């Protein structure tokens, strides 16, 4: 099912970061967001996840606007942001379970997800002992531990070694083969093929001061 946004604009900290932005993603495709720091990649991902509301424009699936049924939208997506959402006092497995079970992930899928992200054997280690790369991988394991058609990934390969980057690439490829879609904000080439690229700088608004006339 197609997921798209029309005429989106977003204000962060009293500044208009992008405006008039359009995008559309079809099953099996991937959209890569590029643009310099502060161009609004993270903002757009958060808008897509409906964590942030766009100042203008709207988001919709083929069967209806996101705003009509936010819970349905949440059930259709996985969001992996800058923050890992890991608890130091919970073990690797418990950390993953927390989020996977909320989205209907089974024990089998959770075990498989840990294997895919090369976390096998770490299941009972508390979160506080993990390295930055391991934390990142555990966070990405959420993607495989339960099903959702839309993946929203913010710099997914930060702190990952080459082998883990390969694992992520494979994960995304499998997801796309199965008809899933992915939106990836990144400034490094992940080597993912057949993607559409959306450069946020193309939607940078003209400087406009709302309060200009106030003297």
């Amino acid at each position, binding site marked *: 099912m197609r997921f798209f946004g029309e005429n989106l604009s977003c204000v962060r900290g009293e500044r208009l970061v992008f405006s008039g932005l359009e995008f559309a993603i079809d099953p099996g495709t991937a959209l890569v967001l590029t643009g310099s720091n502060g161009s609004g990649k993270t903002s757009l991902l958060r808008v897509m996840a409906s*964590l*942030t509301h766009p100042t203008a424009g709207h988001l919709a699936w083929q069967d209806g606007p996101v705003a009509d049924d936010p819970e349905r939208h*949440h059930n259709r997506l996985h969001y992996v942001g*800058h*923050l890992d*959402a890991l608890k130091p*006092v919970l073990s690797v497995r418990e950390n993953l379970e*927390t989020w996977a079970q*909320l*989205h209907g992930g089974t024990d089998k899928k959770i075990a498989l997800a840990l294997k895919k992200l090369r976390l096998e054997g770490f299941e009972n280690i508390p979160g506080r002992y993990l390295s930055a790369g391991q934390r990142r991988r555990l966070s990405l394991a959420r993607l495989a531990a339960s099903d959702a058609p839309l993946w929203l990934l913010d710099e997914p390969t930060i702190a990952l070694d080459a082998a883990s980057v390969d694992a992520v690439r494979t994960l995304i490829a499998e997801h796309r083969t199965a008809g899933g879609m992915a939106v990836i904000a990144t400034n490094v080439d992940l080597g993912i093929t057949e993607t559409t690229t959306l450069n946020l700088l193309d939607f940078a608004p003209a400087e406009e001061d709302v309060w200009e006339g106030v003297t």
Partner: protein
Amino acid sequence: MSALVLILRREMRLALRQIGDSAIIVLFFVLAAVLFPFGVGPEPNMLARMAPGVVWVTALLAAMLSFERLFTPDFEDGSLEQLALGPAPLEMVALAKAAAHWLTTGLPLMIAAPLIAVLYRLPDSGYGALMTTMALGTPTISLIGTVGAALTLGSRRGGVLLSLLVIPLIVPVLIFGTAAIDAAIGGFPVRQHLMLMGGFLLGALVLTPLATAAALRQALE
């Protein structure tokens, strides 16, 4: 509904792994209550007169200390984003958080309350009212506290500000909580006070999840 159970289980699991956090709150409650006799003198009649008020005020202050950690860790490590993106509406998350807070803080305070009442020589006729008002009042406090915690999430000096916001809203619970115990000791009917406290609890149960969810949404924005 199962989402509510899952979130509640997560909260309880986290709270039990960090049980020391709850223990410290109860310890503060006891210590603060023990301070009063040093200040006002150990005269038994006066202490008995003060007992309902001291128990309630110190319980409120102790609860106040616990609210700051209610959402802050989840906000800082990104768990709150994931909870917001979960299948359950944020209102339900707010309710689960309040329930977990009550189980890990309100309930221990309630259990410790009669111990303090004993130290203050609360007349025997007051214990029933003390426990009933605590049972009705502490969940209300947990619910109102979640609103304050959500509103001040990510602010500078969150804890002090939180108290400034929450204390005025909790005043009615304090007023009727102590009034009911006083009435019970004096042999007056307590029913009306308890009905009002039950009303506060029901009102808070309906309204605070909405307010907390609204505050959390804009905190994530």
